[in-house]
């Protein structure tokens, strides 16, 4: 197991280095001088230009610039935003809880609906129920989620007036950030109605963001269950006279869960990519919206730092999934 862990870590390091190079490279190959962009329409004097160029280190050779960037990254220094002048690291972590809260709600929504749907479809293979569920899953899988979001807004916010269109919290509530999670903070604040408002703001974005993971989980659960259900030990369990509920629920589901858990772990990338669209549409103050806004503002340190942080998060989650997978399934370790 240690050997597997080490070999997996050994691939992590060069990938991390590569991700740093890619995120570093973007700002340098950009057409247009970032400092001039920063000055905006006011322009700037030659001295100021040189002072800034020196401050950001653009006047030094590329390898040295990269070395300084890289050592900075290892110490948690991602530079400062051109627009707000706050450290990118701080901005990232002040916005990250919003994205995390949304992503967690989305994946919970996807698991709660996707798992039972996949199991039921597998147990009733080929029946009407199976076909209906799997057709729905394919529609969900093909869904342009930015359009799906607009449709839900039309129906639930526009026609029915049930949910707000944007943001995380109603304007009449105000309380301190404790955990960064609105659901928890609103409860801690003790204001009546604040929690309800947080839930109402979360529902539509969670459904939108959870739709594709939901479809993927349902499909994966079904196929994993079908595979397991044809195994000999399932036939044995049936032959022993165990009830179908016990065979399907206990014997089959446990073994079918392994690939499903992998899929759930690997959907982190999907969630973060989906968060870009979802957060932009619902004005959700998280990482995705922050990245899009920064791209439009040409706030390069933020784009660079955010890109790196998101990639590192995806890599760490993938690493954890791989290690867990190796822990559960010894066959993987041997490869």
């Amino acid at each position, binding site marked *: 197991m240690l050997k597997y862990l080490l070999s997996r870590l050994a*691939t992590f390091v*060069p*990938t991390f280095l*590569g*991700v740093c190079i*890619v995120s570093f490279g*973007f700002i340098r*190959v*950009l*057409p247009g001088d970032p400092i001039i962009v920063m000055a905006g329409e006011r322009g700037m004097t030659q001295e100021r230009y040189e002072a800034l160029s020196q401050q950001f280190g653009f006047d030094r050779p590329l390898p040295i610039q990269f070395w300084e960037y890289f050592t900075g990254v290892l110490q948690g220094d991602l530079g400062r935003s051109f627009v707000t002048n706050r450290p990118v690291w701080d901005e990232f972590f002040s916005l990250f809880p919003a994205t995390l809260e949304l992503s967690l709600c989305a994946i919970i929504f996807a698991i709660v609906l996707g798992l039972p749907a996949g199991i039921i479809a597998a147990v009733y293979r080929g029946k009407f129920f199976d076909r209906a569920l799997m*057709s729905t899953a*394919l*529609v969900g*899988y*093909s*869904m*342009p989620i*930015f*359009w*799906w979001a*607009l*449709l839900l*807004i*039309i129906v639930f*916010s*526009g026609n029915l007036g049930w949910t707000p269109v944007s943001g995380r919290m109603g304007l009449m509530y105000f309380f301190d950030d404790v955990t960064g999670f609105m659901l928890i903070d609103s409860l801690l604040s003790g204001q009546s109605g604040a929690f309800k408002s947080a839930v109402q703001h979360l529902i539509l974005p969670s459904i939108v963001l959870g739709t594709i993971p939901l479809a993927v989980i349902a499909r994966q659960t079904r196929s994993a269950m079908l595979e397991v259900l044809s195994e000999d030990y399932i036939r044995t369990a049936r032959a022993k006279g165990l009830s179908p509920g016990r065979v399907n629920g206990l014997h089959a589901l446990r073994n079918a869960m392994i690939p499903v858990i992998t899929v759930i772990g690997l959907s982190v*990338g*999907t969630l*973060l*990519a*989906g968060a*870009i*669209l979802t957060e*932009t549409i619902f004005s959700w103050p998280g990482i995705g919206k922050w*990245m*899009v806004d920064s*791209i*439009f503002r040409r706030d390069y340190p933020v*784009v660079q730092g955010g*890109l790196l942080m*998101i*990639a590192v998060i*995806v*890599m760490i989650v*993938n690493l954890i999934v791989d290690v867990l997978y190796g822990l559960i399934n010894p066959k993987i370790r041997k490869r």
Partner: protein
Amino acid sequence: MADASSQIASTVPTRRPGRLREFWTYFKENRGAVMGLYVFIAFVFVALFADLIAPYDPSTQFRSAILQPPVWQDGGTWGFPLGTDALGRDMLSRLIHGARFSFFVGIVVVVVAATGGIFLGLVAGFAPKWLDTLIMRLMDIVLAFPSLLLALVLVAVLGPSLLNAMIAIALVLQPHYVRLTRASVLNERTKDYVIASRVAGAGPLRQMFLTVLPNCLAPIIVQAALSFSTAILDAAALGFLGMGAQPPTPEWGTMLADAREFVLRAWWVVTFPGLAILVTVLAINLMGDGLRDALDPKLKRS
């Protein structure tokens, strides 16, 4: 002698049905896939003959008919069956022309991503270990970024346009082809026929492209179908974020971005472009599922 050979030639087709026919037999069992195929054919037809089918030019503005609802609603007319948008442009004509862009995006992205990916995958599969490792590490780096985010940043660097969006999407989809090709190359290389070809004196290029590649194509074809739909979705998402095709191009995602402010006033400007994306992507995914079932020898036996 001539008689005998012609006899053999005439009996061959009856004994072993052609590959295409065999494929069709399996493919047509999947009703969803056949339906997807029909929709896809219709989509291609619309894309190719958009100029002839569309009732109006997609950028003509009818100032007297701004935000006119579709024909079945109060205030709708047959002049604009699906209504008009905020500038008085005919929705139907814009949707028909939009098919052209989506089709174009799909074709270009798949061709670019697949060509590059297959080539790199073949090289990785045949190359010495250091080169193989290098290529696969590079692909890992690309895969570490969520694809839409990487495409978004790439387009921001290159400048927002449909062409740059296609380049970016092709780049982020490429690693899937590399991995797929390499995996099946490694699998095929240990087989007897490949060893035999080497013994017979086939050079590495001949082995790569003529001996091994044709036997690796099945999963790649399936991947091509699936990335066609991913390409359409991602291009529309980039257009929606303002980083793809620029207005007034009637690209479906861009149309949705234009329509956002009318979400609560004019449902049709929002509904139809998205529906077009969904139906197209769904049809291609259905087709892809059918392709996989028909091409996967493991499933055939069961």
